[in-house]
């Protein structure tokens, strides 16, 4: 579980990709997302997935993104099975399942390499209301904490004789109740305490507070953004046969 849970959680790593302006990281992630959607053949979508893995390697996060892909493979398998069984054909079934993996991993690249602070800056830059930004970023920041809570609750219930892997599907779902209730209750209590602590530290007293850190687009950010946009345009034009590349 712990192994899988690292796939979407930010970890501070020194890499060229981590150093990029968060807007550029978002742009690259969106570009991968778009190409995943417009790709129409299995080789194209496999190439997108490969490109995501190359970027993950540059970001020194290949293992973490690999975990996301490994976890998502379960759902991809389900997508494959449903499409294949409903008569969409083998190639289309593979296309949809690999597309799903490409979309998930491209999103994961952004979240694994972007800190909650950077996420906050992007949202503020897009003029999202401050309270919504705060709520969203706090939720992201608390994901590892809630996960840790979930593991501890599972340990506590296992120590009281609860066996999660025992019984039929209905029993297994019912076995989740002793985990979900303490998890939700703890999260609600924690959010209440956090709200009080924030108010005690003058949150909301100034309509437009100043920010200690800001985003700055440097030459390599601009170069990466430009190069990725050119590549996206070229790939899209190739996919839609606007102009054929020599293959």
């Amino acid at each position, binding site marked *: 579980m712990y192994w899988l849970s690292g796939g979407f959680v930010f970890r501070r790593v020194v890499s060229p990709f981590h150093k990029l302006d968060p807007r550029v990281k978002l742009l690259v992630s969106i570009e991968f997302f778009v190409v995943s959607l417009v790709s129409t053949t299995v080789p194209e979508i496999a190439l997108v997935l490969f490109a995501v893995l190359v970027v993950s390697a540059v970001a020194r996060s290949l293992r973490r993104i690999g975990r996301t892909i490994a976890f998502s493979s379960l759902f991809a398998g389900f997508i494959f099975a449903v499409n294949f069984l409903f008569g969409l054909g083998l190639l289309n079934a593979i296309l949809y399942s690999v597309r799903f993996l490409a979309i998930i991993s491209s999103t994961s690249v952004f979240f694994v390499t972007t800190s909650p602070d950077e996420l906050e800056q992007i949202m503020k830059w897009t003029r999202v209301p401050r309270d919504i930004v705060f709520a969203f970023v706090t939720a992201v920041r608390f994901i590892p904490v809630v996960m840790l809570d979930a593991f501890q609750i599972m*340990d506590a219930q296992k120590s*009281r*004789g609860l066996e999660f892997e025992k019984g039929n599907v209905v029993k297994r779902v019912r076995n989740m109740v002793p985990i979900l209730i303490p998890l939700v209750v703890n999260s609600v209590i924690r959010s209440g305490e956090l709200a009080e602590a924030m108010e005690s530290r003058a949150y909301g007293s100034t309509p437009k507070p100043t920010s200690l850190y800001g985003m700055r687009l440097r030459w390599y950010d601009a170069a990466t953004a430009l190069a990725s946009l050119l590549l996206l345009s070229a790939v899209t034009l190739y996919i839609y046969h606007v102009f054929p590349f020599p293959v």
Partner: protein
Amino acid sequence: MTLIEFKGVSFVHETGVTALSDVSLAVGRGETVAIVGENGAGKTTLVRHINGLLKPTKGSVFVDGVDTRETTTATLSRKVGVAFQNPDHQLFSESVENEVKFAMRNFGFSEELVSQRLDWALKFFGLEQYRKSSPLVLSGGEKKRLTLACILAWDPEVVVLDEPTVGQDALQKEKLGQIFRLLQSTGKTIFLVSHDVEFLWPIQPRLVVMSGGRVVADGKISKIMADRELLEGARVTQPQLLRLYAGLRRRPTTPFLDVLEARDWIGGKKESPGAG
């Protein structure tokens, strides 16, 4: 007779952090063992091996002769009851009585036995008036007592308590102390993880001091607590009664176990039991 045995146990977390290094420990039936040490010393990791929540990376843990690697936590839990530090991590039922019944039903107790054990546990921990209340509305001390009631209700042979005094007021601590002495008298094997040396001192358990994932001392609490150099290295403080005892020019042969003994000795009202 040995009930719990750690043989050269090492444990490395998935993050790569080594939490335990070559720990060997044998605990007999009916023993009370307190584990102390600074934060991150490996105390909680050690006790999580007893009911198989964690399996050693190297070495083996045996509970009544059974290797914890070869059985499940649910099976081991019938013998080993663990009360975690934070009661909010386990309470979920709609009523206190259902919370206590939860584990007993998991272990397949008959409804008659469940009912008997429930009545005993609620009475023993002074929770009878909350029988139908939600466990989530209890105070911190009551929740802690409820988690202990949940465990003792199924009568495990080994009781593991992780930081039982955290968040407890003085009166609750005193009650916990009484419960401990009662558990000791019933012959239970008790593991107690705590930073609270003042709480441990009157119980006089066998003391295991941990530092950096290793056992740095194991023996009588009175002997270990007298070794200030060892305690400083493990970042453990001496109990105040021991410091008072060490500071006296005329003192009994054994340290005071509680303030009343110290008062009587200093006031000259009566001789301490250990006076020579």
